[in-house]
């Protein structure tokens, strides 16, 4: 945890961040304008206004980062901004398709989703800044381990509360509050990473060292593992109960990876994989819904009606080919839920393999920068927190993009920053805020060490 401590930094990277923010804004505005040109043949009327708004958000966020986290990693903010901008353009594009379809059918044009998403983007960036302001030192978060756990469990439980929870598309993972719907699971994800990290910081040595050795595997003591296991089981049970299997998979993955990082024992990854396999098998036998998903993955064309969604996703990707149909020139609206779970397929269709690879690489950069922040920071809590959050983004992207491109069976999850949905977007910005905070702590030069003794104005005292 003292990897980069010795390296002297010549700059904070803030100017690089500003330059990259401008590039990210250009990507977002360019995509928006390109959608307009692709659909209507001309530059959309509000391009300048929209561009100025994105610029204000980007530069504003940059200035606030400069103010509150001057040594933070300069790549995180622009990468997230670029992804958010691409997502907005894609959702706007699907709005236009929905409007055209409504006009064709002679039904009222639905309200554009992109407007709401833009508001959520502003809220998200605002929350990121709020995290930087309210949490000047991430180590405070480690103080209330059990309260944090409790908060996480409560968040997970909220959708099950009668009158508050709503079931949408077969999964009871939403709550409705003040006319808005939220996915508290998205917040629970971040809260749980904080809780796991703070618990593991205290107990990791005990988990790794104390315990009995059974069949060449070091088993940790029950009292060290117990609490974490109980909370984790509660979380999993709730998620399974809510039929949110994608989130269950994600939670499990984060949990196992944090255990592995905290204890440095590969055995945890092996045990985790075995448990995941067993859990997958159990889910397969218990839920028809899971069997359908696995069948759709193995042989989508065996039942084109039931597997319509994944088939349309594949057709979209194929139609995009290597270079893409061009923004506004494909038919991503043929994919059900193109704006949420399947947005990666919509990107693949209109921006092609090239564009989808860029998006995946951007996510890869986010994950890599998060892990680097974990390595760079000096305190073990910061390390676990950053590693957990980076892993959360990475695994989520893998599960959802792998699902819509038929690499793995489909599980419902949002694509960070791209998908329509306020809760997901806002919480991902919170993750960026936390990563910025941790990276700031790691990159900030250590306070100047006390001058060496030889230069001190002390007198050698002759004893004899």
């Amino acid at each position: 945890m003292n990897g980069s401590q010795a390296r002297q930094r010549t700059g904070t990277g803030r100017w690089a961040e500003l330059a990259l923010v401008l590039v990210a804004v250009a990507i977002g505005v360019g995509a928006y304008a390109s959608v307009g040109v692709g659909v209507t043949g001309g530059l959309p009327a509000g391009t300048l206004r929209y561009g100025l708004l994105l610029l204000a958000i980007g530069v504003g966020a940059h200035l606030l980062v400069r103010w509150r986290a001057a040594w933070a990693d300069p790549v995180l903010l622009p990468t997230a901004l670029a992804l958010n901008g691409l997502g907005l353009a894609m959702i706007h594009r699907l709005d236009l398709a929905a409007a055209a379809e409504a006009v064709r059918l002679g039904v009222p044009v639905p309200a554009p989703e992109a407007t709401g998403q833009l508001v959520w983007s502003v809220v998200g960036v605002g929350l990121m800044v709020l995290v930087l302001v309210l949490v000047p030192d991430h180590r405070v978060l480690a103080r209330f381990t059990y309260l944090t756990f409790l908060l996480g469990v409560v968040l997970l439980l909220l959708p099950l509360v009668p009158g508050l929870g709503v079931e949408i598309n077969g999964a009871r993972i939403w709550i409705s509050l003040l006319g808005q719907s939220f996915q508290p699971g998205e917040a629970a994800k971040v809260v749980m990473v904080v809780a796991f990290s703070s618990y593991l910081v205290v107990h990791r040595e005990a988990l790794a060292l104390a315990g009995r050795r059974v069949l060449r595997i070091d088993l940790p003591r029950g009292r060290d593992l117990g609490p974490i296991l109980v909370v984790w089981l509660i979380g999993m049970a709730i998620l399974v109960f809510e039929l949110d299997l994608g989130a269950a998979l994600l939670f499990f993955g984060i949990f196992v990876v944090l255990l592995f990082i905290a204890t440095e024992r590969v055995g945890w990854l092996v045990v985790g994989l075995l448990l995941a396999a067993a859990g997958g098998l159990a889910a397969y036998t218990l839920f028809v819904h899971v069997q359908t998903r696995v069948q759709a993955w193995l042989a989508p064309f065996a039942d084109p009606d039931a597997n319509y969604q994944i088939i349309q996703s594949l057709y979209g990707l194929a139609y995009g080919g290597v270079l893409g149909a061009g923004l506004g020139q494909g038919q991503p609206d043929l994919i059900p839920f193109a704006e949420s779970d399947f947005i990666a397929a919509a990107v693949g269709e209109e921006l092609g393999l090239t564009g989808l690879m860029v998006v995946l690489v951007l996510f890869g950069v986010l994950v890599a920068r998060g892990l680097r922040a974990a390595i760079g920071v000096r305190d073990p809590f910061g390390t676990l927190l950053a590693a957990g959050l980076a892993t959360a983004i990475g695994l989520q992207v893998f599960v959802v993009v792998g699902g819509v491109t038929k690499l793995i069976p489909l599980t419902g999850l949002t694509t960070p920053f791209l998908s329509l949905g306020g809760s997901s977007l806002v919480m991902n910005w919170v993750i960026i805020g936390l990563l910025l905070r941790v990276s700031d702590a790691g990159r900030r030069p250590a306070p100047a060490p006390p001058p060496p003794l030889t230069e001190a104005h002390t007198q050698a005292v002759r004893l004899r």
Partner: protein
Amino acid sequence: MNRAIRRWSVVMLLLFGALLANVTFVQAFWADELNARSDNRRVLLEEFSRQRGPILVADQAVALSQPSTGQFQYRRVYPDPRLYSHATGFYSWLYGRSSTERTANDVLAGTDETLFARRIVDLVAGRPPEGGSVRLTLLPQAQLAAVDALGGQVGAVVALDPRTGAILAMASTPGFDPNPLADPDAEVQEEAWNNYRSDPLQPLLNRAIARTYPPGSTFKLVTAAAALESGQYTTDGPVPGPAQLQLPGSTSVLTNSSGGECGPGGTTTLTDALRISCNTAFAAIGIELGDDALRAQAEAFGYNSQPLPAYNAATSVFPPDLDPAQTAQAAIGQFDVRATPLQVAMTSAAIANGGTLMRPYLVAEALAPDLAPLEVTEPTVQSVAVSAGTAAALTDMMVTVVESGTGANAAIAGVEVAGKTGTAERGPGESPLAWFTSFAPAEDPLVAVAVVIEDPSGDVEISGGRLAAPIARAVMQAVLLNQGGQG
């Protein structure tokens, strides 16, 4: 913990690598297959918004795209569906594509590789991409004669140019109208489709190439060919022709359609046996030659292999492992022998072409939007069915069929016509089939024809000559009048 994070980041790298590899596979390698799937509405949408090239017969467009209002910019129009519905097929938003609309889709839609350079030029010039066109081998006059002659009967006609294998006429009745299937109104499409599908006469079925029937006596040409090729028989040597033939190992007895003997004393010649379509003679020859010899000869004529594979033509069948009784029945085109009208025409065409069977084809050439030829179909030899000597002998025998035998109705004044009638029994409760196959002129053939009529009315015994032969004559005349001397 940093060591663990470094290890974990390698795992993350592998996971992202898997994502990248997978999208590369889907979008760069699997894409062509996905795009070609017929239920892929994206590709259809794009196709439907583009001007599709016409299907030509001679210089007339029999399927073309016209500007349309509604969901798409263009719609498909078929000016003469009565003649060409089975040749063009349909092009429907709801029901996909069939026949030439399907087989030549890449050229018509402008997505064929041969059009690639033009697409780039179109792109640079800012022109909307245009589809190429295809010209069919059909001869309009022959096609008209075939459809007119079939009239209201249920049946099919195939006419081939024996020298090339080009299909000059391909008719199947009842036909259908592909226009409503291409209508911009989905309900019109649906109604037409349901009508065609519920019609017991199956108007969407192209009987000429996609349905097999028992070939009946027309198969005697194959048996005669096998007999001559075996060296054991000559055209004028004696062959048995009794009134009845006891099938080996069976109590069944095979008779002639006349009920009597085929010649004095129950003996006849191969030529006479073919002329009067003597069942017992060919059954006896079949038993003598054995099923392997018959099968080998049938396969040399094209049985047991699929012609026109792009058009999903049916494969004509000579069944495996026959006992002598079954062989006797197979030798006269019964038992489980099945043939399409195309196959029967190919048999005649091979005999007409000196024993060499040319591979049948329907698309003469593919043309670029500016009508520059992209791809011209060159005639190819499918097989050598019989020697030139055997072909000449069979031709002479077939000429007697028309001059003084069962095929008199196919005679054309001033032209020597070679032919063979057929009447095939079908299963119990089904009426027999009337067949006729022929070619003309016998000495220098320009056209070979096969005609089948389902449910012939009247005296079934002679229906092949009575009902089918005049249709064959009409088609042959049309070809001779319009293509005489053409190369």
